[in-house]
């Protein structure tokens, strides 16, 4: 019994009540560091009394956490049902991949754009849609996408 008490109370073993804050901490770290680089992981681990391995294990499970550096503009194309029915997703992704010369999940060599495919971004009323950083673009056509990309290439955010 004594041993199991030690197990329960040992600080070596993560405090479960602290670990429950891990997802929230990862969101903060991602905001702070831009992506979850080793330094960010280390920082979160330190703060919550977990091992970096534990933090990485959780972070790698969820699609909203980036374990790779992201481009200046994160393009997220919706492949939700409404966008699919509106004939979006696949055509748009193929077009963007062709335009930027990268595959979904990759970042352009100049670090400007990264391309992702995401699930419903709640713009079903005006599908097809995509999000660039925090900006939502709806009722997309290939012509509009070309314009948007050209604009982003030219200016700064």
């Amino acid at each position, binding site marked *: 019994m004594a041993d199991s008490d030690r197990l329960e109370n040992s600080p070596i073993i993560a405090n479960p009540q602290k670990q*429950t*804050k891990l997802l929230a901490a990862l*969101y903060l770290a991602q905001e702070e560091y831009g992506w979850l680089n080793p330094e960010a992981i280390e920082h979160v681990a330190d703060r919550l009394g977990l091992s970096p391995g534990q933090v990485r*294990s*959780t972070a790698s*499970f*969820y699609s909203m956490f980036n374990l790779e550096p992201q481009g200046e503009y994160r393009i997220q194309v919706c492949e939700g049902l*409404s966008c699919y029915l509106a004939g979006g997703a696949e055509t748009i992704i193929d077009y963007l991949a062709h335009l930027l010369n990268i595959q979904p999940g990759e970042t352009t060599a100049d670090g400007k754009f990264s391309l992702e495919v995401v*699930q419903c971004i709640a713009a079903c*009323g005006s599908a097809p849609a995509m999000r660039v950083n925090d900006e939502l673009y709806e009722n997309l056509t290939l012509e509009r996408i070309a314009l948007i990309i050209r604009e982003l290439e030219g200016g700064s955010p």
Partner: protein
Amino acid sequence: MPVLKNLTELKELREKARAQKADRENNKLTIILGMGTCGIAAGANEVAAAVREELDKRNIEAEIVNVGCIGMCHNEPLLDIQEPGGPRVTYTKVKPAMVGKIIEKHLVKGELSKRWIFGQLPGENGQTIEGLKTYDELPFYSKQIRIALRNCGIIDPESIEEYLASGGYGGLEKALFQMSPDEVIEEIKDSGLRGRGGAGFLTGLKWEFCRKAKDYPKYVICNADEGDPGAFMDRSVLEGDPHALLEGMIIAGYAIGAPEGYIYCRAEYPLAIVRLKKAIQQAYDLGFLGENILGSGYSFDLKIKEGAGAFVCGEETALIASIEGKRGEPRPRPPYPAASGLWGKPTNVNNVKSYAIASQIMVRGADWFSKIGTKKSPGTAVFALTGKIKNTGLVEVPMGISLREIIYDLGGGIINNKRFKAVQTGGPLGGCLPEDALDTAVDFDSLTAAGATMGSGGMIVVDQDTCMVEFARYFLTFASAESCGKCVPCRIGGQRLLEVLTRITRGEGSLEDLDEIERISKYMREGSLCALGQLTPGPVMASLRFFREEYEAHVTEKFCPAGVCAGMYAYEIDADPCTGCGLCAKACPTNAITGEKKEPHAIDQLQCIQCGACYEVCNFGAVLVKRKHELPVAEVNK
């Protein structure tokens, strides 16, 4: 506002809130705006700005109230005008440029433009305006009974006073001051309420298991990780009436004997999270949460946990792992969460709607609830209607209603008067039903018996232009991408199924592939760890069962009857219905269509790229989808 210390203070506050509301309705002009995610996406913020500008310009004094989604997503943005002592008159599809005219006509000239008015919601005392239809007389609402959605689109979700004025926290009041925890559980059991997340387990029984578990502390969790494509029922409750959920959770906490609760909400619902946080803060400020609630001696804390983009976290054991800060992977059950859940302690997990309904059952009684719906599935079902249907949106109907009534009476039928083909319920883990199943009653058991599932409430309608193989492939792409990878049947099986379906939609499939689908599906159903893997084959199996001839056409004739799968069909113009209007020739990007004016046109198969532009624009149904080999071979083989 000070913390409410006892029942008397609560009653006083509610009276005050009611008096305030009555004062507004009787003496003030109110403009009500639909500010759910759907309304905002359709431009409600711009409409709101136009309203303010217009009122300022004309020096009209009015209160502007923001409400959640009333369900008519296809008609957003919505603007209601309620004159002192009158009903709420609803304007639909409002554009900022219309606001000036609406206000001038309605408020200055006193004219009601029927062209823009959808209907009226009677005022507090039933007052109406003659000549306008009330919501109850309109097809979209006449068959609805709104329990989970009772306040959505009616009250301001960011005002706890409005919730109180509508009788809110009355269920909690009754539970805390008139009933023992066991009596609360009996009441919920008597109501027959079944879990609205999809599995349909008896809610009262779940609460009882958790109450009887001999460990402490216990936890109450709300599963608000609504991730099905095409489903937004829970979002509407979270955005439109967050206190209804809070009240249900506090009641559950009291019944079970739990000191703490968590709402696990997907991060993709930012507006819902904002409104929930606000509601929780208000509940703490007034003493509906925290120490010694309303002086009853019962204490309860409630926190929000945001997900991070993992569909599988909608499974209760995965959800619990995620709250603990771990990878959101499911684990085998039993033990069920009621025995061993969050941190190994007894935990009750219910869906948003279950809690929202439970709080209303406490107010109106088990008897009232059990008389709605069917014997085995009492109450109502909330559906998000989407796809090729005229009235997309959110409806709440009594259980037992037929699919046909929902799709045709409420939903208004298929857009562009095309032919209904199938309806998918239960999202990517559900199944589809064909036209001859349209009279199936909507309840947990009938839908399962028919070959679909109730699910959480997504209802996707597709028409003749949807290829059922491709439709199943879409859901499979989703479900297999969301497999967490922990168990082999789900991880590998989903991928293999997807490969087979992809092959079929590319015209590379064989008849053996159809057996292969059934074989893999069987292994996934029997061998997967959680519902995600067990139900991933659902859409494929249902479409194979009801639309087998479509699968067979794909594999034996390399023909896609819906004209969707690339290279597996050709277009031809039927000379009979063709009027020679020339629309198709204009739409054709490759100039493949020729013909004299007012004479039947024809498609040159050598030029045609099967883009479907002619099919879309033809108003006479003259463009047909044909098997390639039905056309002269020389024309097709480019």
